[in-house]
């Protein structure tokens, strides 16, 4: 049946209603052959982690434009960890100042994408990272 498909959760934590970026990225990732689960708006970190468990995703991508990323992004990571999902590839995007990007990347986010990012670059990044992980899993097995 061909290649294993990458399953991606696109999540909108917090009260922020700006979903243009999240939905655009979700559509592009789907065009790249990934399976997409979109959480919809106004989700708590815990609710997002719950959906990640239920849908057994490989990747969690978060989008936030409300300035609350330093509060909510780490909480999603904790909620994933509490549910045994610390292995997922965790990425994010939004209006996030440079210093915060560095802090979040040091705190377990693989990569954060800012305004002006080419959506194909996001897809290619995810594919490359998942390829690395699956190759390693294959070698470990």
């Amino acid at each position, binding site marked *: 049946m061909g290649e294993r498909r990458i399953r991606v959760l696109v999540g909108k934590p917090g*009260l922020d209603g700006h979903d243009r970026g999240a939905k655009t990225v979700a559509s592009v990732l789907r065009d790249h052959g990934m399976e997409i689960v979109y959480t919809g708006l106004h989700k708590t970190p815990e609710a997002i982690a719950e959906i990640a468990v239920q849908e057994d995703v490989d990747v969690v991508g978060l989008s936030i434009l409300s300035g609350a990323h330093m509060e909510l992004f780490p909480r999603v990571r904790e909620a994933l960890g509490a549910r045994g999902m610390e292995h997922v590839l965790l990425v994010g995007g939004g209006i996030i100042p440079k210093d915060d990007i560095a802090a979040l990347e040091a705190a377990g986010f693989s990569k954060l994408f800012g305004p002006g990012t080419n959506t194909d670059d996001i897809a290619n990044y995810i594919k490359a990272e998942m390829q690395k992980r699956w190759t390693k899993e294959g070698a470990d097995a």
Partner: protein
Amino acid sequence: MSRNNDAGSVSVVDPRAIWEQAFRKAKLRDVDFSTLSGDELQPVYGPDDVELDEHADLALPGVFPYTRGIHPSMYRGRLWTMRQFAGFGAAHETNQRFKFLLEHGQTGLSTAFDFPTLMGRDADDPLCKGEVGQVGVAISSLKDMESLMQGIPMDQVSTSMTINGPAPIVLAFYIACAEKQGVDPKVIRGTVQNDILKEYQAQHAWLVAPEPALRMITDVMAYCTEHVPNFNTISISGYHIREAGSTAAQELAFTLANGMEYVRRGVAAGLDVDQFAPRLSFFFDSHLDFFEEIAKFRAARRIWARKMKNDFGAKDPRSWMCRFHTQTAGVSLTAQQPENNIVRTAFEALAAVLGGTQSLHTNSMDETLSLPTEKAVKIALRTQQIIAEEVEVANVADPLGGSWFVESQTNRLEAEAERYFEEIEQRGGVVPSIQAGYFQSEIHRSAVRYQRAVERAQKRVVGVNCFVEDEAGPEIEIHRIDPASERHTVDSLRELRETRDAGQVQRELDAVRAACKDGGNLLERFVAAAHAYCTLGEIAQVLREEFGEFKEPKIL
């Protein structure tokens, strides 16, 4: 000499034929020549490209159908209001920014609220942790409104409040605050956005399901007609539709469709159209496509005038006038080479002025990075002042009227809007189309199409897909919200809960609940609840319980 036959002499006197022949031979740049919204353009326009009845379609400024502007004197009489949207942190911090803007020549206030306030939640609600005061000011009660307006004479300043789901509650705080300043609500001026339909379609800060939300809006119209007659009760907004990714035509069409829906609701609630329609105002985006935007503003005035007069039978000319605020396009700003955003904003602001706007917000260069700094806000305000004072564009009304290109674009946008009105009607109207996710899908499709066009460099963005510089561009200062603001707002709210009259709070909340059930005017109840220092979250919770929440349709 080429006069050897008749055919030859025809081609000599027909400039179009000469031009066509030459144009076909010309070597063209290999770029996309469509509008920003993706509509094909001709290389040049002439009289044959525009079908126009000068009197019926254009007339003159201040004359139906107002294509050329709503005032006979336009900016010779009065410049547009320079209204910079501001708000962050705790109420007293935004109060300082308001005073700064007033001192620098701004002529009206415009309030940005934080997400907790926009979603009808108190600052101490666990769902709001980390969001208080981030993208706007936190207003949880009348007490916060009092510190927001402290020292600002509410009988003199006009205030715009960008809030929708809980708009009637926050408006009640404003009215109550005026009363506490000793100002008669009859004289307060301003606008409350209060446009819930576009929240479901694009901006997504809703409180309850559409039908009860629309009932609250007609309650606001009814109450204000009588008690707060100088307040614009709704600002029907295309801005968020456009920022969410729509085309210019979709922004125009969906906004006016929403406007007509509010008018229908008002009429159905038993109000006389001429009693409330003059207090309706609009809010549009001004994006980068200079001529398409100008045409959009002109088309909006013409369509609204025709609908109000012909379809709704409004008799008061003020009901026919599409008055609007404009904001330059936030989505057009780039995080790359952010100082270039000053130039983008200036062009967008100029389009809004040439399009005849009544008020204008110019974005600051740093808004793709954070909320703006004082320096960036001042440059944005100065941009408007330069347009008003230096470039001599405020002397003549509708200076592009009669341009074959602009008139053809105006006609095209009107025709596209009419096609959308039919489509929405066929789908059962605005609310069923929202519930089916129609607008949301249309906007999403346009957003993806534009994103792909940029990524394929069909649409050029300086600093993003052309004239790109290294990552390490000039560092600009970032405005960070002090975490102490959230603590301050939460502490102040806790203190309020301990000191207010709990019995009176409960009585007022019960009265709100009763009005939800028996159809009493809710704004009247909210004003009373505001005076009792009921909080936003407490009142909103009653509404959520009584009216039910909105379930977002799945479009992905």
